[in-house]
């Protein structure tokens, strides 16, 4: 299977990539790891006339500390997110997610920015990054703007990013002292994509009660969904197994997942409750250990 013919341009700066996108308009696409785009092009689901390669732009890879924020370059591959000491130390929930995407080979090629920009409803990073209250730095024609994960994922494969913007960086605020993060996923047995997944950020007060809870779910909608009722239910309460279970039981409230041949809507809602509980428990355990 070959993609339809296209022209290839290796960009050497973000500015150049933005210029090329502006020049070629709808016919052009950015290329990062290519692990969503190339399969789609081989199946002729996408046939861009021009590909603008971002992998040749220097400075878009790696993880660095920027004040109280962990800044991850958009072109950083999953394997490097998972093996980053900074990520391992501060955001183990992100390591959980980076380690269960696809398979070893996919994790060596797919990029965090590509996953966010592509906004596949079965993707992992959008879910955990929503739980972690991440934001995304976009570079339009001039200046740059930052969009919070909560406002970024709009619909299936649709984000707040304009067609001629480049996602350059993923910024994750360092959780406060006493926090834990975790991500758990029920993968589809054939594709490995998310059937249902849950990401959690929990901050525990020294007294043991919950100071902050952010929980996001995958697989229940067109993109990540915050489990607002669960978050509210935990607020200020002691983080006992009973409290966590009761809060998790509300995780699927106000969601309307679509059933498919593998998982019915009812099953997905049930799994969401179980996986929300597991994600919160794991986050609380890490909070206690930290």
């Amino acid at each position, binding site marked *: 299977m070959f993609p339809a013919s296209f022209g290839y341009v290796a960009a050497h700066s973000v500015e150049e990539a933005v210029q090329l996108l502006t020049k070629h308009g709808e016919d052009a696409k950015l290329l990062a790891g290519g692990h969503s785009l190339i399969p789609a092009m081989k199946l002729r689901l996408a046939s861009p006339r021009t590909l603008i390669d971002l992998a040749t732009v220097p400075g878009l890879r790696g993880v660095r500390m920027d004040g109280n924020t962990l800044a991850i370059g958009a072109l950083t591959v999953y394997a490097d997110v998972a093996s980053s000491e900074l990520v391992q130390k501060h955001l183990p929930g992100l390591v959980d997610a980076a380690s269960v995407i696809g*398979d070893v080979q996919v994790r*060596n*090629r797919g990029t965090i920015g590509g996953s966010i920009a592509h906004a596949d409803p079965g993707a992992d990073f959008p879910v955990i990054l929503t739980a972690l209250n991440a934001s995304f730095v976009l570079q339009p024609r001039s200046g740059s703007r930052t969009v919070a994960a909560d406002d970024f994922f709009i619909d299936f494969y649709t984000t707040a990013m304009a067609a001629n913007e480049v996602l350059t960086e993923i910024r994750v605020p360092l959780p406060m002292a006493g926090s834990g993060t975790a991500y758990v996923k029920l993968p589809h047995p054939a594709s490995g994509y998310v059937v249902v997944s849950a990401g959690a950020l929990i901050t525990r007060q020294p007294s043991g009660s919950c100071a902050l809870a952010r929980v996001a779910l995958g697989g229940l909608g067109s993109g990540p969904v915050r489990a607002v009722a669960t978050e509210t239910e935990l607020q200020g309460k002691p983080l006992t197994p009973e409290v966590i279970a009761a809060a998790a039981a509300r995780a699927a409230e106000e969601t309307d997942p679509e059933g498919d041949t593998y998982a019915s809507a009812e099953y997905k809602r049930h799994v969401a409750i179980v996986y929300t509980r597991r994600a919160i428990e794991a986050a609380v355990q890490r909070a206690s250990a930290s």
Partner: protein
Amino acid sequence: MAAEIEFAAVPIKVTVNGVKHEAVVEPRTLLVYFLREHLNLTGAHVGCDTSQCGACTIQLNGRAVKSCTILAVQANEAEITTVEGLAREGVLHPVQEGFREKHGLQCGYCTPGMIMTAVSLLETNPNPTEEEIRHGLEGNLCRCTGYINIVESIRWAAEKMGGKNVSR
């Protein structure tokens, strides 16, 4: 005419199994076809052609990747190792030897990909448990389903290499 310029072929330089190559490729050329048809290195197989099976696995700058899901132009300036590049002066790589000793193949179609993934696995984890081996091979499918012997082959290689990170 305009279309020809628009879809212009692109010059690339790659080092494959230690040998430098320069070529001019159509942008849509997939790396696996570049290796197989331009360089006559037919070790990397095309199994599924849909990024699932891992038969096309090679090392790109030292990492296992699926060459059916990479454009040849994306490999510009890269170092590539294919299964043909593993043996040194006629001496098989321990993973290749393991597959022979432990009957790690039946039809052999998945084998080059399995071996390349296993070589990468042992480079990062020289002494993997059975579970770690199975987890490490999740991107490789064997249609003959010979997984038990594949795992044993890799264990054999790990032991032969002394659990050490032998960078070759």
